[in-house]
């Protein structure tokens, strides 16, 4: 690349292409082509023949089958979406709270940080499934295992329900909070990366802002809502998107798509199921993104 009559801008853009070339090759071969193929599969009947596969075009048949004929698909899809709708706010709230907590100065802070990020290291589908199997073996069946898990936590939910009811909390909210407390381990386990992101955001808030607020007589509560929250709000969107995608990768819908493809060998149906699911995720992200970005404060 010595001169060769190329202008500097041309040279720069060629260099840029050189840097992204490994990704570009991978993107075309391992993302774009499979994606187009997947769309074709979703509208075809795929049968494996020696040395490859054959496609028979069936238009929207697979989609119709997934939505109206398959007995389980709708239920599993709505369950996955509902589960996500419950989890995302909890994870966001918990991770913002932990990040603020870990950002304050106190003795043993680095130890606390190390422990809070441990779930990022240990979050594993394999371990979780083996663990569930271990516990199920121990108790006999899944529901019993769950109940035993709850009772062994030595925590009486009724006391909390009563307390919240006394305080005039509506029943729906009480349900939600009790549910959140019961699943605290799951929530903590899936908020590691989000805590990291919020913590990084908090570190970039200039300390002078807090000093000024303090001089003006703002309480900690006020400076949280007037300074901290607006400053980290752009990252709320990032975290929501990350959480939504993350919660879907471990949801039962992925399992359904997998078994449809590799156990019942119905590749076309599986492809259309996964596209329906992708569309649902996409629409959800668009709606969430629209509402959050309206509230977000950018500086």
């Amino acid at each position, binding site marked *: 690349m010595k001169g060769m009559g190329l202008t500097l*801008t041309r040279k*720069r*853009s*060629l*260099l*840029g*292409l050189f*840097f992204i070339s*490994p*990704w570009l090759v*991978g*993107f075309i*071969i*391992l*993302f774009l*082509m*499979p*994606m187009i*193929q*997947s769309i074709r*599969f979703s509208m075809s009947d795929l049968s494996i023949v020696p*040395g490859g*596969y054959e496609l028979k075009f069936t238009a929207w048949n697979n989609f119709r089958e997934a939505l109206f004929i398959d007995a389980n698909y709708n239920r599993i899809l709505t369950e996955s979406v509902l589960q996500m709708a419950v989890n995302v706010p909890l994870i966001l709230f918990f991770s913002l709270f932990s990040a603020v907590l870990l950002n*304050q100065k*106190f003795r043993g802070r*680095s130890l606390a*940080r*190390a422990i*809070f*990020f*441990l779930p990022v290291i*240990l979050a*594993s*589908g*394999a*371990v979780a499934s*083996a*663990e569930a*199997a*271990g516990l199920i*073996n121990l108790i006999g069946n899944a529901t019993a295992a769950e109940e035993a898990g709850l009772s062994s936590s030595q925590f009486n939910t009724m006391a909390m329900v009563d307390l919240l009811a006394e305080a005039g909390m509506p029943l729906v909210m009480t349900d939600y909070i009790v549910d959140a407390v019961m699943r605290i*381990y799951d929530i*903590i386990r899936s908020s590691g990366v989000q805590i*990291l992101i919020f913590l*990084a955001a908090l*570190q*970039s808030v200039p300390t002078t802002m807090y000093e000024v607020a303090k001089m003006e007589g703002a309480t900690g509560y006020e400076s949280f809502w007037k300074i901290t929250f607006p400053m980290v709000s752009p990252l709320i969107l*990032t975290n929501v*998107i990350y959480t939504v*995608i993350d919660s879907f*990768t471990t949801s039962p819908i*992925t399992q359904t798509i997998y078994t449809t*493809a*590799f156990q019942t060998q119905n590749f076309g149906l599986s*492809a259309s199921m*996964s596209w329906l*699911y*992708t569309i649902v995720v*996409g629409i959800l*992200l668009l709606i969430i993104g629209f509402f959050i970005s309206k509230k977000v404060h950018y500086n």
Partner: protein
Amino acid sequence: MQRTKNKLIDALWSIFRYVLIIGISFVILYPILMKISTAFKDKTDIYNPTIYMIPVHFTMDNIKLASEVLNYFPLLGNTLLYVFVVMVLTTVSTALAGYGFARFEFPGSKILFAMVILTILVPTSTLMVPMYLHFRSFDVLGLISLFTGKEGVNLLNTYWPSMITAGTATGLKAGLFIYIFRQFFKGMPKEIEEAALIDGAGGIKTFIRIMLPNAIPPMITVMLFSFVWTYNDTFYPSLFMSETNLMSLKVASLPSQINLIIPQLLGLAGTDIKADPNHVAMLVDTGILLAIAPLIILYLFVQRYFVESVERTGVVG
């Protein structure tokens, strides 16, 4: 008066904060502590309700048996080698792409970066079947069949699918890594590169000699994430490499294996007698502990750099 009140509030808050932090830490550590305690327990200790955490009969039997079932050390060596190679390939390819997107303008660079975001957003399960068929008869643009006249190569149950996806920055969470690198390189002052350019260094030399040594924080972040997520991943291995020796696959099949092996050890194979479920659970827990132990040890060494580097990486944008 006001001052003593403030002091009181501060003191109360710091007590409350310690209670919270210790509580949450306990919730996180409890399963690990339970597993460590289980691993050293004797079978008879399961039925002793007076035992909490610290076993009465210490034994290494569980660890011995679980590591035998897992074939632990060969498996660990194999897995670590695989994860290490994937990690290096991922870091190199995503760093290159991140730098390319951060610093160069070329036709369609904005659209291509939008495509990077798209690869983060499209669920992997959507591409599962085409990828599977793709690797079953791997053939880049039909070149192999063009030159040799044969069908593509079957890469299933080899390590190639992971190597290829890692090397081309399309593997596990690679989009996220490209994003992290791009954010970091964007934040670096342009003057450094301009100075290097005037001193006569080409673009590639500038990248290797000037930019990479400065990019240690995002590199640690990406390497650690890539290492851990590849080590734990079951999606790619079970799809493309289900017959290979990898820790995550072995751990997932641990319960059924142990259910088979215990009756054999007792000389009861072929009879209707099933293994004691409590004993099975104990061994599964020990196996899980063995599987995550390398990660915990690794984390103990690098957690300091990890937390600091993430703060400086500029994930924030």
